[in-house]
């Protein structure tokens, strides 16, 4: 598959949503260990908004689809998660302009723009034990796959793998952002819930093409 269009983007979001939904309890349990225990429900609400945006955007274009997904996520009462996820998807929307379909290069650029959107909201970097630990490597892996001439599904698979590794790496980190930072050293050994959500989402993105 060389290019993906509106329908594929819609379906990768639905697949991501499914992955999150299966893990709502686990995500909240991770958050209970180092935060306030609500990350699962919050992501569930974000995914409600995502699915609603996908279904209500039918007939629109790619940019509108992504914008609606982003605005929907932003509108939930989502603690940090709403603004961060919202910025990610709205950033992605910025990059697709009036494109009807995306090749691997455009896909990488879209995720980079999403990452840039998130960076406007937070100073967290890789190593700070946040969703950035999954998001940055995922975006980087997609970019590298594309540069190496991989297909869109291959690039997404690389992104998913990198995100999962990144999420797992948070176990060895001390939290420096979010509620978890209050726990300091005691966050060692716990996997970051936000990073886990990102990994699950990218897993869903990749699986949509299996």
């Amino acid at each position: 598959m060389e290019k993906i269009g509106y329908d594929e983007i819609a379906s990768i979001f639905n697949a991501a949503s499914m992955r999150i939904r299966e893990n709502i309890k686990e995500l909240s349990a991770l958050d209970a260990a180092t935060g306030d225990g609500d990350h699962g429900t919050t992501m569930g609400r974000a995914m409600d908004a995502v699915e609603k945006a996908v279904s209500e955007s039918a007939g629109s274009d790619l940019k509108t689809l992504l914008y609606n997904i982003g605005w929907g996520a932003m509108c939930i009462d989502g603690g940090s998660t709403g603004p961060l996820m919202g910025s990610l998807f709205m950033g992605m929307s910025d990059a697709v302009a009036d494109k009807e379909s995306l090749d691997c290069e455009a896909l990488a650029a879209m995720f980079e723009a999403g990452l840039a959107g998130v960076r406007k909201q937070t100073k967290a970097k890789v190593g700070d034990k946040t969703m950035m630990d999954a998001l940055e490597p995922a975006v980087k892996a997609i970019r590298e796959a594309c540069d190496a001439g991989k297909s869109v599904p291959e690039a997404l698979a690389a992104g998913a793998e990198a995100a999962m590794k990144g999420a797992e790496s948070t176990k060895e980190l001390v939290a420096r952002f979010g509620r978890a930072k209050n726990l300091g050293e005691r966050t060692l050994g716990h996997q970051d819930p936000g990073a886990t959500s990102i990994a699950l989402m990218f897993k869903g993105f990749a699986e949509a093409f299996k």
Partner: protein
Amino acid sequence: MVMKKFINDPANLTPELLEGYSMAYANKVALVSEKLVVRANPKPLDKVALVTLGGAGHEPALSGFVGEGMLDVSVVGDIFAAPGPPKVFEGLKMMKRDAGILFVVLNHEGDVMSANMAEQMAEREGIRLKRVLTHEDIAPGADAPIENRRGLVGCIPLYKVAGAAAEEGKSLEEVYEIAERFNQNMATLAVALKPATHPAMGEPIFELADDEMEIGMGQHGEAGTGRSKMMSADETAEIMIRQLSQAVGAKSGDKLLVILNGAGATTLMELYIVFRKVKQYLNEQGIEVARSLVGELLTVQEMAGFQMFVAKMDDELLKYWDAPCDTPYLTVR
């Protein structure tokens, strides 16, 4: 196990509680646009408005203090979750006025992110506002960077003081200066004994051994800094008031406002016993408890524990603390 709470569908907690609240206090507040709690009798346009935001599940919390002399709009999120930026923007837009808006934000990442984006939207609309960020938690140390210090119960006396100044007709700059003065002179420390149950999830939001307590606990069970064996009321009180009075630099002759805010399941009986020791300790230091309040202002469901709050007061701050107000959970004649 069945959750032992009086609720219906856990997905509807926030809309139902807000509806019930606005029905119970219809003479003082109204609910608009689903998540905005506003004054039943709006403040005149020539006075500075006070807007704040925060998650539900902490009742009476912020919305309990909407009314004459305190808040104009409380933008409510879902249980323990900051409202999304568009809703916060809506709250600000509703209060748009030449006199301006004092925007009070509690330092929690979600609230701050939402406030940041809402402010960007408000700027585009030409809304005049100044933000006060409350961050009076001293659990990470009174000198810790602001990012690390959470906003706890201190927002509520701050609404009181700033709200009274706004009611008096002070300009936005003046109201902001008074609010910031109070903000810079306050400190809170929380202690927890037993966890709360998340009312939508049905699970305890943290764990604490049968014989343990934790000083420095956050507003949602985010862990604190001082897990220890259970201590007596007097021991707990003394550890906390010592740190708090140091944090605000209280010296002999200074006047403090002291608030004990129950977390939910801790009784007033216990809070009075704690207050007694706080007062004794401060007396010994020659520090005056000029004003005080013991009750439940900002709760965490049925968590057992409390927040101890102090603020160093000057005559002007005392005047605004004493000024009349009329809200569902604080009325001053």
